[in-house]
């Protein structure tokens, strides 16, 4: 057997056993791949499909419910929407020629394994998403959930996560303007680390992830590619390279915020110079995702010479290079006569940039390794036409009992003394107490545009220095409400974030969400999921603001026990002049106190 499993070799050895099951593919998914490409996949193709068709990348369990977004979005709600669901992040028009993009994403599991690096790379990932839209990132937020504060493992996870969010965001120079810290036993084995980033740009500067224009160059830039995050495909290595075996692959990704900071400035210079025709960040599924998504979104094919990718670890095999989730990398599509200008800018920032391929007028994504074709596939089949599941839904049986157990059964304080004790115990509870231990580890002042941050309910940043135009953002969710009733719980989260933005003085404009749930294979969880989406979508329609993007995180459970459904909602609003924002809390002695609403 040749050391490289080329397309030709695959065609000649149709019956070779392949470890598709170990890679998480179902038998019909594997059969489907064979049908799409008309032969058995090469190892590189198998690796690509398996990771792109994973739940994380393909949204295969959740996608069918996303029709609820569209169904509940009216033309009126789309008025200010410049880029909607489907791109790296949604973009809204905030007036005066300014556009704002924002999105929230989860990094739950990695943060449990290695809290500092997991949280840090979570921030890094969402920031690259925002950068890839053409925007300058202007603020971050973090919505965190942990188990019991007194549990020994919380002592490992909490400080690490907080230090990681701060370590990365502070070093990037992005003000952290808010977030959440919630403790509940249900998150003991599944802490939630959801990171949100906001970016701003002029409307004409919006960039999209698409590769079009035959002859345009594909440039990979940023950090070198290492073996990060490819543990899952190691089964492939053992298939082909029996002798010696691969060197050890790291179980966790380590972030380099300095490299990302330089990458941000470098990208902004590239945008300013007008040398970027299309751009995509490299996150989950690395090059597999970037090449297939860029090609799939474009109008032609793409050819990539994988052996040109600069490596941090020379022992990496081609399929591993395709899978690697090394951080701080981007991919751009550049017109040939702009390549020199492009490289001059990356040089100035000391960012490594390599032309690794070009856009073709074919309709296939072709990847070669020292001349051998190892991938030859229709890019849409990898990036956008993955499997779709209609998983069974069922309202959990325990809900009736849970809902029946109302507050009536609780004892009420009878005396002043009892009331006092109760109040004190509430004030002392980790969920209500002062969070400055966390927020003081985050730089909220950098960039000089922060008009509100902790401890206020919404973060407010100025976008336009000459007019004071800016945005307010809040994230909220109460998983206990969502556990009782996912539809109403999701709406309560939406309503709370909406109120927080409105009371800061902003007009709410758009919504992003991070849907943290248990296993989609559990019909009860799937029912919660559907209810939550329905709640958000219908709530948004009622409020008249669209969902512009988000993220789904499934399998947040320990054994059979899922976390409370936790649909974290971020709402963004616009203010003509953020100097007129309202802080929360009583600020003036003698002021009157009014209670509004019911």
């Amino acid at each position: 057997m040749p050391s490289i499993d080329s397309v030709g070799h695959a065609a000649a050895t149709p019956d070779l056993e392949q470890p598709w099951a170990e890679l998480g593919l179902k038998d019909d998914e594997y059969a489907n791949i064979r049908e799409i490409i008309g032969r058995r996949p090469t190892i590189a193709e198998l690796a690509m499909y398996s990771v792109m068709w994973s739940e994380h990348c393909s949204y295969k369990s959740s996608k069918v419910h996303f029709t609820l977004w569209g169904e509940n979005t009216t033309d009126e709600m789309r008025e200010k929407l410049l880029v909607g669901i489907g791109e790296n992040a949604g973009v809204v028009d905030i007036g005066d020629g300014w556009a704002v993009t924002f999105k929230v994403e989860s990094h739950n599991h990695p943060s449990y394994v290695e809290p500092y690096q997991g949280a840090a790379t979570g921030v890094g990932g969402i920031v690259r998403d925002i950068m890839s839209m053409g925007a300058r990132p202007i603020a971050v937020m973090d919505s965190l959930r942990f188990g019991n504060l007194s549990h020994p493992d919380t002592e490992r996870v909490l400080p690490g996560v907080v230090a990681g969010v701060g370590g990365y965001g502070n070093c990037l120079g992005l003000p952290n303007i808010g977030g959440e810290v919630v403790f509940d036993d249900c998150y003991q084995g599944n802490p939630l680390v959801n990171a949100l980033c906001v970016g701003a740009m002029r409307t004409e500067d919006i960039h999209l992830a698409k590769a079009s224009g035959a002859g345009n160059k594909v440039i990979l830039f940023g950090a070198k590619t290492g073996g990060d995050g490819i543990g899952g495909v190691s089964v492939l290595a053992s298939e082909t390279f029996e002798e010696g075996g691969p060197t050890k692959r790291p179980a966790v990704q380590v972030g380099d915020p300095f490299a990302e900071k330089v990458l941000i400035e470098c990208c902004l210079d590239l945008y300013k110079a007008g040398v970027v025709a299309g751009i995509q960040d490299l996150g989950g599924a690395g090059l597999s995702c970037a090449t297939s998504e860029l090609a799939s979104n474009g109008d032609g094919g793409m050819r990539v010479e994988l052996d040109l990718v600069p490596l941090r670890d020379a022992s990496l095999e081609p399929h591993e290079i395709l899978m690697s989730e090394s951080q701080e990398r981007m991919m751009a599509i550049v017109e040939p006569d702009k390549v020199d200008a492009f490289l001059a800018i990356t040089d100035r920032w000391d960012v490594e940039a390599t032309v690794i391929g070009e856009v073709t007028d074919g309709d296939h994504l072709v990847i070669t390794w020292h001349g051998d074709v190892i991938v030859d596939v229709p890019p849409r089949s990898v990036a956008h036409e993955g499997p779709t599941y209609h998983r069974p839904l069922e309202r959990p049986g325990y809900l009736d009992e849970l809902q029946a157990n109302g507050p009536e059964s609780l004892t009420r304080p009878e005396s002043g003394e009892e009331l006092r004790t109760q109040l004190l115990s509430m004030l002392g509870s980790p969920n209500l107490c002062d969070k400055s231990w966390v927020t003081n580890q985050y730089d909220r002042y950098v960039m000089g545009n922060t008009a509100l941050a902790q401890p206020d309910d919404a973060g407010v940043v100025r976008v336009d220095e000459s007019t004071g135009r800016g945005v307010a953002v809040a994230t909220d969710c109460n998983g206990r409400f969502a556990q009782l009733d996912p539809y109403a719980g999701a709406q309560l989260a939406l309503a709370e974030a909406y109120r927080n933005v409105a009371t800061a003085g902003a007009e709410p404009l758009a919504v992003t969400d991070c849907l943290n749930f248990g296993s989609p294979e559990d019909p009860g969880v799937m029912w919660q999921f559907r209810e939550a989406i329905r709640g958000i979508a219908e709530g948004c329609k009622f409020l008249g603001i669209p969902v512009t993007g988000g993220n789904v995180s499934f399998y947040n459970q320990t054994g059979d026990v899922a976390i409370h459904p936790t649909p974290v909602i971020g709402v963004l609003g616009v203010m003509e002049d953020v100097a007129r924002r309202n802080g929360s809390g009583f600020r003036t002695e003698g002021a009157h106190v009014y209670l509004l609403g019911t």
Partner: protein
Amino acid sequence: MGSIVVDVMLKPEILDPQGQAVAGALPRLGFSSFSDVRQGKRFVLTVDGAVTDEHLAQAREAAEKLLSNPVIEDVVSVHALDEGHDGGHDGDAQQVGAARTQDTAVRTAAHETGEADA
């Protein structure tokens, strides 16, 4: 007083941004011989009296449990510093050489080879 040195390095396959920054700066200062740099930690633990096997065993356990993060780091060596000469100081070549013969490495992981980092 005796001293025990614990050396901890990032696993070879883990990205080391700190080492990379140093590696990037060295040529700019005219140091061109170094193809790679990795940065780790060195702990010096003090014990009362001479270093015993018991102390070393405790140090080894502490190294694994507290001083290193096994997810990303390896303990590459745990060894006593010789007390004989200079009150436990790690002062000159002679003495360092002597001290190090007491070394007790705790792992045989393939370290410090300077293979391009993974």
